[in-house]
């Protein structure tokens, strides 16, 4: 993956799936540990519990003005509702990571570079559904590894999750990353 003037990542799911935390972890990793600029924002509405909830991270080597996604480079959809709500902002050829257990239907699938990761199943295996967000973060990592060191992400995870869940969160991250490596060949640019 080339160095982006502006990389736009969107993670969306139901309220409670930890998508806001993933955004915070990514933003902290890029800004504090990589010295890049990043802006993280969340959707905010009365429907945030149970409704579509999203978190966005914009990363750049330069200045970031508009703080929201214009055309997402990467979209992680953890629910069908989230996918339906936000897919239109994913650019053509953009990376789409979905959980096939909850996302059954990807309209115009051929327009995107789609990766299916059973984040819920993997999370259950490592310790519970609440670790789904770190599985998704792990699955995202191979796509951004040229822009960020794994240690930066791990440092940001350890700053953002409760100490007693750190070990399991790290395992979740590792499993998500491994799943992509074992099931897909990522083309190097």
């Amino acid at each position: 993956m080339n160095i982006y003037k502006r990389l736009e990542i969107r993670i969306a799911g139901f309220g409670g799936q930890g998508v806001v935390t993933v955004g915070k972890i990514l933003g902290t990793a890029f800004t504090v540990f990589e010295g890049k600029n990043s802006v993280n924002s969340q959707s905010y509405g009365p429907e945030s519990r149970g409704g579509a909830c999203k978190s966005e991270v914009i990363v750049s080597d330069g200045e970031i003005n508009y703080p929201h996604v214009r055309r997402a480079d990467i979209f992680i959809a953890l629910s069908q509702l989230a996918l339906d709500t936000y897919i239109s902002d994913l650019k053509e050829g953009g990376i789409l990571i979905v959980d096939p257990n909850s996302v059954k239907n990807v309209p115009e699938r051929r327009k995107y570079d789609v990766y299916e990761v059973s984040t819920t199943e993997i999370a259950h295996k490592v310790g519970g559904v609440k670790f789904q967000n770190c599985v998704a973060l792990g699955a995202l990592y191979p796509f951004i590894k040229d822009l960020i060191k794994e240690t930066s992400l791990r440092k940001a995870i350890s700053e953002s999750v409760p100490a007693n869940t750190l070990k399991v969160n790290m395992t979740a991250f590792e499993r998500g990353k491994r799943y992509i490596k074992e099931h897909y060949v990522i083309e190097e640019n």
Partner: protein
Amino acid sequence: MKKSLDRYLLQPGVYYLQGSQACIEGAIVAGCRVYGGYPITPATEVMEHAALRLPQVGGRFIQMEDEIASACVLIGATWAGAKAMTATSSPGFSLMQEAISYAIMAETPLVIVNVQRPGPGQGYITASQEDVMQARWGHHGEGSIIALAPASVQEMFELTIEAFNLSEQWRTPVLVMAEEPVAHMRERLVIPPKDDIKIVNRKKPQDVGITPENYLPRSHDIMAPMANWGEGYNVNHVGLVHLEDGNVTKYSPRMHYECISRLQQKIEGNVNKIARVETEFTEGCEHLVVCYGAVSRSSIEAVKEAREERGIEIGFLKLVTLWPFPEAKLREIVGEVDTIFVPEMNLGMMKHPITESLRDRCRRVVSIPSLGILHSPEYILSKIYEELK
């Protein structure tokens, strides 16, 4: 005691914080040690961070029964010698207007952060700039106000410090007119070394050699020193029109005029010291975007793209200070332009003082309104192209 609490101050360095958190960190650096408040979306994060941080640095956090009390507690705290603040959102801001009016009359420094939400009524809970006129005209009676508009996490930190400095310097309430996108976003915050941050504290009579016998709490000099309660000075202050000694016993239309015109003049007469704007590409530009707050982030992208894509000579002017309105500064910067675009998250409010200031310098002023959501650069760009086709 003081030394042991220093470790709780945020040390110089790079942080990744929400705008709401940066606001409180700025307040703490500025010396704020009292926060009285009542929660309301989307300002609650400011209060949450205050609840965590104020006690850590030896301050007081008080959840009040409502917004009226939240604003009034600041007045008492200030006169007891503290720097004090609250944060609210638009419906709560309406309830605070009475206290703001009193604080203007009693020349009481305090800081109110308004993370605006759309209205009228309960409106909605998303982004808004619909209170920019209420900031200036919401309180009853004459008396100018200072209002600032932060556009980033860094500015939430810096402008909160500036708000406290201005309120201490000019003895007046200062409003930080924030918005949901800036209050909730996370972004790089750089805390500079302590010595690089300017802090202004109120001038006290004992600092300038005024004894209690000679102290006039409402000196008709532009700025009277401010004595705190309990320091031996006669601190007489009322919400009524008053004489230099703080009393209203000898009312006359003349003293009325002098009392109020001084309150007005101390702000409006010093607008060039108080107000700030930021510009890009304004020299010789044919068109201009004037904006403030979060909308300036979308606007600068639109301006750059209009220049690159279509070669339109369009400039960018951001109001850092909304009130007092920096009319002279605008006239200094803007020569003669064709169209002035004013994108705002309301139906066209600051468009009015902008038009009033520059009506002889432009052919027309075009409002680009948005309600409840931050303008995308595409939206601003499409409006510019539509008007200039």
